[in-house]
């Protein structure tokens, strides 16, 4: 399938960019896998269907972290079969360049259902950039994405998902991670444009000394509807999790959920849900939940929903900044806090999205 220039631009905006050094790439256009290329021997990138044929052991991991019967969307993904990627980083291999993957909806009204599976073996490291977008002319469609992450002992997986959908697209990601002893899982999520409906609630089960961080940054213009969140289950001793979400509603609806469950001693969990409302027509609903099942744990959260502070705005304007610029500076800063540790190229991508979203430009 040939891609036109505008599609290439669309892909770049969600981090799928051949000009950026990367360790592998994977592209699905509608239902068709059009690229599956590893650029190093340290890892494998291939269609999941092929991997399931090649590695019988993988079948045990297919739909293990996520129940096929969880809801109608997981059932639909199961019925559609394993269209999606399998990425494996071999033991003790640290792949520092990102692996780029992208799911592109080309055909208006299409229902795209994919299933991905990631394995980072003991001591391995992987940085995955996951872009999901529609072709410029496509406003309608449905994307269902099941992703299972297996993070081995002392391994590290960072996954950064950037959503850039059409106005009336519905999106149902279903992802879960299992992090073995001493492993680290970092999930970054960025959505800056209008979307018909997004419902996602990724989860991570953490064994002893494992950590998970979920950062979500969303900007919801009028018409956008997002129900996002994350759950961390601290199963092993001294497991730790941070869930941070920053939501800006410019007229859109945003639900941010969070749940940290501390099961054993020495666990630590912290949650921050901060929302900024720019218009009275918008809604931000934060539901942080902490659940402790052992006396020797530390769980905390802070949550806030409010307008831009008049005092902060006046302070910036007293230096000569016009109100609109002052607002942008505050909003941009508010959204970028959780993503401070993103690799620079991705930081740049996100900053550009935030700036353009604020200007109300079509991006």
């Amino acid at each position, binding site marked *: 399938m040939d891609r036109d220039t505008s599609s290439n631009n669309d892909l770049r905006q969600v981090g799928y960019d051949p000009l950026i050094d990367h360790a592998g790439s994977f592209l699905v256009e509608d239902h068709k896998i059009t690229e599956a290329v590893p650029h190093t021997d340290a890892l494998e990138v291939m269609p999941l269907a092929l991997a399931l044929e090649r590695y019988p052991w993988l079948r045990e991991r297919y739909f293990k972290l996520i129940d096929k019967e969880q809801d109608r969307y997981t059932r639909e993904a199961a019925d559609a079969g394993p269209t999606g990627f399998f990425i494996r980083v071999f033991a003790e291999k640290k792949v520092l360049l990102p692996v780029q993957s992208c799911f592109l909806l080309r055909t208006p009204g299409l229902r795209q259902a994919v299933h991905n599976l990631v394995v980072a073996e003991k001591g391995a490291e992987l940085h995955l950039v996951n872009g999901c977008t529609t072709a410029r002319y496509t406003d309608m469609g449905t994307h269902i994405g099941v992703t299972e992450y297996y993070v081995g002992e002392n391994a590290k997986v960072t996954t950064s998902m950037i959503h850039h959908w059409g106005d009336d697209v519905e999106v149902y990601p279903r992802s879960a991670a299992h992090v073995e002893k001493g492993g680290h899982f970092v999930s970054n999520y960025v959505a800056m444009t209008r979307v018909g409906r997004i419902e996602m609630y990724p989860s991570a089960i953490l064994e002893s000394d494992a950590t998970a961080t979920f950062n979500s940054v969303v900007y919801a213009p009028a018409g956008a509807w997002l129900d996002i969140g994350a759950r961390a289950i601290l199963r092993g001793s001294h497991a730790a999790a941070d869930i941070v979400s920053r939501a800006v509603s410019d007229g859109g609806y945003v639900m941010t959920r969070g749940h940290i469950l501390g099961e054993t001693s020495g666990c630590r969990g912290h949650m921050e849900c901060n929302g900024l409302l720019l218009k009275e027509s918008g809604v931000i609903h934060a539901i942080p939940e902490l659940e402790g099942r052992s006396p020797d744990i530390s769980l905390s959260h802070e949550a806030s929903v409010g307008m831009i502070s008049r005092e902060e705005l006046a302070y910036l304007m*007293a230096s000569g900044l016009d109100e609109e610029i002052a607002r942008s500076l505050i909003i941009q800063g508010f959204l970028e806090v959780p993503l401070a540790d993103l690799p620079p190229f991705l930081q740049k991508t996100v900053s550009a999205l935030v700036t353009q979203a604020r200007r109300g430009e079509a991006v």
Partner: protein
Amino acid sequence: MDPLLSISDLWVEVGGKSVLRGVELSIPNGEVHILFGPNGSGKSTLLSAVMRLPGFHISRGAIAFRGTRIDGMETNEIAQLGIGLAFQHPPAIRGVALENFINAIDNTGEIARGFRELHLDSHRRRELNCGFSGGELKRSEILKLYAQSPELILLDEPESGVDLENLAIITRTINQILLADNPLEVSRRGGLIISHAGFILDYVEADRGHIILDGRIACSGNPREMFDAIRSEGYYHCVRRMSER
């Protein structure tokens, strides 16, 4: 020639209560004035009213900058005309890096020097005023003025909560701003500085002092003499003595 700042019969309400009640004040070009007064006398309210910060309602009177009325303008327009205010208690703004803010307002084109001289290079990526110490807050406020390079600087207690080392750093930059750091500049810029402790007089050459009491300028004169009298006898005695002259 119109004065740099001219305030006449200024009445300002805060929360429905009159805090300023008929302030008269004029700062000619190139002069630096010091504003003394006890807590609650209206010093900070006066600077806030000049900048038209929210919550400060001008119910009567006029403020003019170089002959142009500014009491009906927006805060950013007043700043753009050439007035800069260093806040006593600047708000902490999460997410906004000091460097991003300063770059957005920089009129100098040589802001690297400001960061260096105010010892703020290591704070470039810090969130604006978040967790800053007293000295860091003051240095960052002065960096802000340095970047703006205004014709009139308003300083709200630049010496409070600052040790002598920090005071030397910030006053050096204040003098640079006042002199526009330009040897060809014949006349220096103007300033209105609120001072409690009077230390600032040892570092910045001030032309005139004013005591504000109960929302009015109660007396004016030589700032050094006034400060000495305030220190030995208090504000009210100082006012009486100055009036007797």
